[in-house]
């Protein structure tokens, strides 16, 4: 049986299948496996708490992870 995060992954995967997002992925040449990895960062420690410090640390983690991953790829 799936975990809660499995269910969230599945919902995210399904929404990405929408034409508008497929078009966007193709237009900007976005890498599907990276999208998947970035989503994993959003799933980390997400317990639904809307504490502003948690949101800010989440943003920092998400943004840094994306930039660092892309930098690593470029090299």
């Amino acid at each position, binding site marked *: *049986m*799936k*975990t*809660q*995060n*499995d*269910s*969230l992954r599945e*919902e*995210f995967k399904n*929404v*990405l299948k*929408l034409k*508008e*997002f497929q078009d*966007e*992925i193709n237009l*900007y040449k*976005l890498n599907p496996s*990276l*999208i998947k990895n*970035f*989503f994993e960062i*959003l*799933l980390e420690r*997400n*317990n*639904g*708490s*809307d504490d502003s410090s*948690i*949101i*800010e640390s*989440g*943003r920092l983690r*998400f*943004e840094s992870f*994306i*930039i660092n991953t*892309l*930098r690593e790829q*470029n090299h």
Partner: protein
Amino acid sequence: MNRLLLILSENKTINMLISKVTVNNFFCFLGENKFVFEKGLNIVSAPNSGGKSQLFNAFYWTFFDQIYIDNVNGKKEWKPSVDIIPIPDALSKDENYIGKVKTSVEIIIEAESPDSNDINEEIVEYTFTKTVVYEKNKKNELSVFNKPELIISFIDSGETKILSPALHADTLERIFPFSVRKFMWYQGETMDNLYDFNHPNTLKNAIKEISYYPIYDNMEKIVKSSNLSIAKKIQKELTSRKQLTTEQSKTLTDINTLNENIGKNEGKIKELDISIEDLDEQIANEEAKFRSYDKYKDIKNALENKEFSLESTNNLLQQQDAFLKEKLVEKWMLNGCDDIIKNSEHKLNIIQTEIQKYANSPNPVPMSLPGPEYVQRMLDDHRCYICERDVEEDTEPYEALKRRLDDFQKDASYKSLQDNFTELNKAKHNLLLVLPEINTEIKKAFTTRDEYIKKRNSLSKEIRKIEQDADNDNKNIKARGSSADQILSKLNTLKSTRNSKKANVTYYENLISQDKDKLAPLELKKSKYKIGSEDAKLVESIAGDYISLFVKTISILNKEAYLKFIKNLQEESNRLYSLYLGGNPQGKIVIDQGIRILDFENGELLTNLNTAELVAQKLAVANSFLSLSEKVKNKIYPIVADAPTSDFDPNNTINLTMNIGKSFQQMIILSKDYILLNNKDRDKLIKDADVVKYYELTNEKINPTGSDSRVNKKTFINVIK
């Protein structure tokens, strides 16, 4: 038996399971009493006072420090366990027993580990042991020897660990989340309190616990914040590399400013939405309060109207009494006047005869010519000044003058007689008019007074009836009526504040819409900029493309999560509703502003549903919360229900039992409704409903030849399966 740690590598669902309960010296459970429960449908059958509710209390006492017990008015309510001594009467009231008494409940459950997280979700075996020790003296008085203490232990990697008391509350909240707790343990008789969607927080809390809504909400905040941040980084980087023209730089600045404004205004809308939700909650609370006071408002109005009428009637009665008194005095004063008037008739006739006699006098000369003073002078002077001749005494002219002088006397008497006659006649006439009128008025006044008295009595009776119907005294009705007025006034204020906040939301929505309109052409302009070559595209720009995709996708998931939850809740409620009614529900459950059952065909609201249907509906919705939790959060909770079928007839009880067990992994039903079954029917139910454990509890004499008192009684457990 200790179980090993279960690592959920394959099956990651958190299956909570109640495995064993040991109740020791707890209310009717004397000594040690063990119950073993398994996955599936477990039944504890007992008559009233058999011990099922005390078994239910054993769970609550252990986990939540509460006991559901009779209050002073004989009505059951939840009470803090510190106020209650749970020792069986067989010990607490036995005068021969002196010494220490230990009460304890031990519950073994399988639930998620205190260290569990998404990556490493574990199920461990917990042992909850709550103990309290009392001391009983020779005077039969009890005092606490050892305070109630809860020990939570769990087995981790084969090792038993004791959980620090500081972590108890968090662990209990983690295992039994507050928002779904009441759906896990419930009393049939408190079914009405299970959920009340007039209180928005019920739904909100359930959503928080069960749906993805808050998770997506957070994700959306994170990705939107990242989007703003990355846009600034891109502009900063491009500016530092001098790759932007002045116009391009301005466009990017404008885009960032607009995005920031939109973000700020969205934040304000969220804050307003939270305030509106709070107001909704307050309004719902006040409306709930108002419902219990509402009737007093009308009663108070009715009462005050009646009291006003009563006061007016009393005033009129007083006026009437005063009027009557005045008229009666008049009548008293004129008492006997009727006879006088009758008797006066004869005398008046005499006077009249006398007057007539005088009026018939032959002397035509008016009495004023000459006047009496001249006549007297003529007599004194012995001379008639009319004919200018002397008048000697004892002559006829002299006598004529004397007679004329007498006539003056007679005339005065006549005039007086005439006046008196006129006055008397007038008085007689008046009296003749007034006397019958007074009588009529007095009669009428008495009738009116009687009517007022009748009305006053009737109003007093009506006031008493209003008070009796309201089952309250006048003072209370008015106090509650005034409370209703106050609540209504508060409601109006709250609603007005809510409207004003809603208007603010519209204002900020308009601002956002205007900013978005400005943003669209700027974004188009930006997309046409050729900044650097494709190969040399900034990492921040590429990250921006990814983040932008996340903003759009997560926003959709967030919007859909709430609606999806309601839809799922409704679907699951209907599935369970149909299941509990043996596939024959009359209508479908609809969850929107509240919970209603609508006709399948015409969609009209179904009223006059029987008790079984209503209870099935409540059970279905309550259970669907847990059922959804299983599907969405992958957490399966057991249900412990005390008398869930108490409002059902026997057929529906069997029907529900057959079906309810199928809806949950573990269910423990404590009920008196199975004692009516004979052994054959009971065994059939166990087989057909796939009951995994079946206990029968009876409260019987400890000493069969002893008294019938509760001191000589305890609960016996008969394990049927």
